[in-house]
């Protein structure tokens, strides 16, 4: 066991944060893409 069990905790936290940012960010990007595509369809439907 390392002398301090919390040593290098920053690396673990950084990895977990980066993973969440990338995956949540991608999901949000897909969700926004869907919204913009659907508003485009509604625009076409209403003749805008």
């Amino acid at each position, binding site marked *: 066991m390392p002398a301090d069990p919390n040593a*290098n905790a920053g690396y673990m936290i950084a990895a*977990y944060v980066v993973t969440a940012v990338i*995956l949540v960010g991608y999901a949000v990007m897909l969700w926004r893409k869907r919204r913009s*595509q659907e508003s485009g369809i509604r625009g076409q439907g209403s003749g805008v």
Partner: protein
Amino acid sequence: MMTDALRARCLTRRGLTISALGLLGLAAVYLLALRYTPVERFQGLPQKIFYVHVPAAWSALLAFSLVGIASILYLWLRDPRLDRFAESSAAVGLVFSLVMLTTGPLWGKPVWGTWWTWDARLTFTLILFFLFLGYRALRGALQDPGERARFSAVVGILGLVLVPFVHLTVYLFRTLHPQPIVLKPSAPSLPEEMLRTLLLSLGVFTVLLVGFVTTRYGLATQASLQGGEDAG
């Protein structure tokens, strides 16, 4: 009867629901990894990076394998749905690769003492990442849909050839990278709590892969029905 546009919209919505469930699962994995699994004796807390790095690698390699399989089927059947599926899997594979390639060095620095080393596993993983960046660039550069699908299918198949090679590099070369601990001929060599967390994380990342690819495919189908091209 359901129109193609409506079907594509339903698929996109279903994909987003699956992705949201996957993200909830990711929160559960974080809780489990931080609260339930023990701290490894020699590596300390950075060992817990393993619960996101390994599943990200699994999902990336699975996505790139799907690109290759869909590409082979496209060249055989010439069905544009297969091309859209391959394109969607490639985009999602790059997202998981990004997770793998950022969390790997974050583990390497405290454990190996370096962010990066030109070790066989790391180098071939990077080559695979660049191959699929090239795949995306190629798709963006070609205007003719038939030509774009054909040429990118060839690159997708090259990627598929590279996938098992990346997995086997730790056996074929002398490498610093740890050997597989789950996907190996003998039984997994991990304490029960660690194995349970890893298996849950593998499941969650697979759900996220399914959710993202389904959404991305639904969006690509909607875009092609509207006469557009890229779905992001």
